């Protein structure tokens, strides 16, 4: 269900919170059905063939069609996205980041010790390219900090939350990283919100990614999240979707489509 509010929310955080009274009861029963649908579908796609390497599905696999090239997935585009994600992590714990956004983001990315290939790419940029990237990251940081609002500390924001799901006897692996997860799985009403950040404009691929985040989270925790949201720091647009069974089933079919494209036999 997509809710239309009478007034526009002042900040991303306010939009993520939504109307507390309108939250549905927590759904702990749909996950098994979704898993069953996925397993049945994967058997139809993969048959009994066992490959030496599992087929790995990521959010980026759903973002674009495989025969197209997305400039946001260039190495510089990925690096920019990674740096802005670092800034979101800092903002969510109350660190002010706009003043030295680029340096702060690079500092944290280096310290994190992941994405070594992107750091290597950063090192290879000449002064002009680096300055362009710095300006770009600062512009995205300004959009993010103006729109985000303060994340309340008692929400215990979890950032860069990874997820892995092995399916079909380990022949297919679903991998995902959600930039920000808020809310608790305890309680009678759904309260978990998945928030993703992109430095590209939102498009059809973003919708698929929203659904994918919700699906993987449901499979991982057996609890259907309240909503899945995506914010573009390129346009300042925020999309939020309340998660329901229909949305998750749609994502199941999209995942099956990707698996078929990546290595199915059917």
């Amino acid at each position, binding site marked *: 269900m997509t809710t239309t509010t009478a007034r526009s929310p002042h900040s991303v955080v306010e939009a993520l919170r939504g109307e507390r009274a309108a939250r549905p009861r927590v759904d702990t029963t749909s996950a098994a059905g979704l898993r069953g649908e996925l397993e049945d579908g994967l058997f139809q796609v993969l048959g009994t063939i066992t490959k030496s390497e599992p087929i790995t599905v990521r959010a980026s696999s759903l973002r674009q069609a495989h025969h197209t090239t997305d400039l946001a997935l260039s190495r510089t585009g990925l690096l920019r996205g990674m740096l802005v994600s*670092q800034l979101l*992590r800092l903002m969510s714990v109350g660190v002010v980041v706009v003043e030295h956004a680029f340096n702060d983001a690079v500092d944290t990315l280096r310290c994190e010790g992941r994405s070594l290939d992107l750091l290597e790419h950063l090192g290879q940029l000449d002064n002009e390219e680096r300055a362009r990237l710095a300006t770009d990251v600062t512009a995205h940081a300004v959009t993010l900090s103006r729109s985000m609002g303060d994340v309340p500390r008692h929400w215990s924001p979890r950032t860069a939350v990874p997820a892995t799901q092995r399916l079909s006897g380990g022949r297919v692996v679903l991998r995902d990283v959600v930039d920000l997860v808020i809310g608790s799985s305890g309680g009678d009403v759904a309260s978990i919100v998945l928030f993703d950040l992109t430095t590209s404009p939102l498009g059809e691929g973003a919708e698929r990614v929203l659904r994918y985040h919700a699906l993987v989270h449901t499979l991982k925790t057996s609890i259907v999240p309240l909503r899945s949201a995506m914010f573009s720091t390129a346009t300042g647009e925020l999309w939020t979707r309340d998660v329901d069974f229909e949305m998750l089933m749609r994502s199941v079919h999209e995942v099956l489509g990707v698996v078929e494209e990546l290595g199915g036999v059917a």
Partner: protein
Amino acid sequence: MTTLLHRRYTASSLRALVNDAPRERATLTDDHRRSLTARFRAVASSEHRRLDAWLVERAGQPSGPFNWSPVTARRLIGNAASRRSVARTDLSLGAAVDDEINDQLLRVTSGYARGGSLAYWLSGISGPVRGLVVAEAINWASSTLEAARHLDVAWTVAPSDAYYDVAAARTTLRGRRDLIVGPPDAPAIVRLRSGAPGKSAGPGLRVDLTIEALTNPEGRAPSRIIGLWPDAGVSLAVDGTMDDLRAGARDLVRTAVAQRRQRMVLAA
């Protein structure tokens, strides 16, 4: 026969794993301890050996020199923050993490921190990196407390890991534990891990079980050791039986042997 239970990590399955843990626990006697010590002594080592489940899972392969980073610091700070948050319910997790880091920094300014310690590293990092440490620690503490809130029995956040020094064998064993749950006479141990469990996750849990029993003054094993992998939504558990304790001890000795062989190859 050893045990290994594999479940999805949900509130009800975790509750069942804790509540259905066997009440009869195996006990290690002085003979067992002496026998283990003799085996470790037989594997000569020129330097002090430190063995844990991680090393056993990697078959003794060294994983490079240790460096502090937000990821390596998160468990220590996250668990300490969880304890603070449990003790003071008015404290948010973020504030608890901040308090813990401030306490660590206080140790440096008062001269109690050694070089290479977490406190020492924290005192030298920039503001943004400290922000990342806070973010990682909140992630860890949230996972720990989320697991604890699923339980309907008494629980505590473990005050420290379990350490056992094998007498005159230059060997220290370290067992990881994050939550201690259930009655004090038959507790179960919960251990959180990031990522997804590999093929050697079961032996890793057995090693933690054995070290836990060795650190108990009466040699009593926990009723069950439960490994949670929240990223993968999976939980594995091993019962505190004598067969599992033996398998854990055997894997520890084998790892010491493998480690020695690798060092000999490197030296050659």
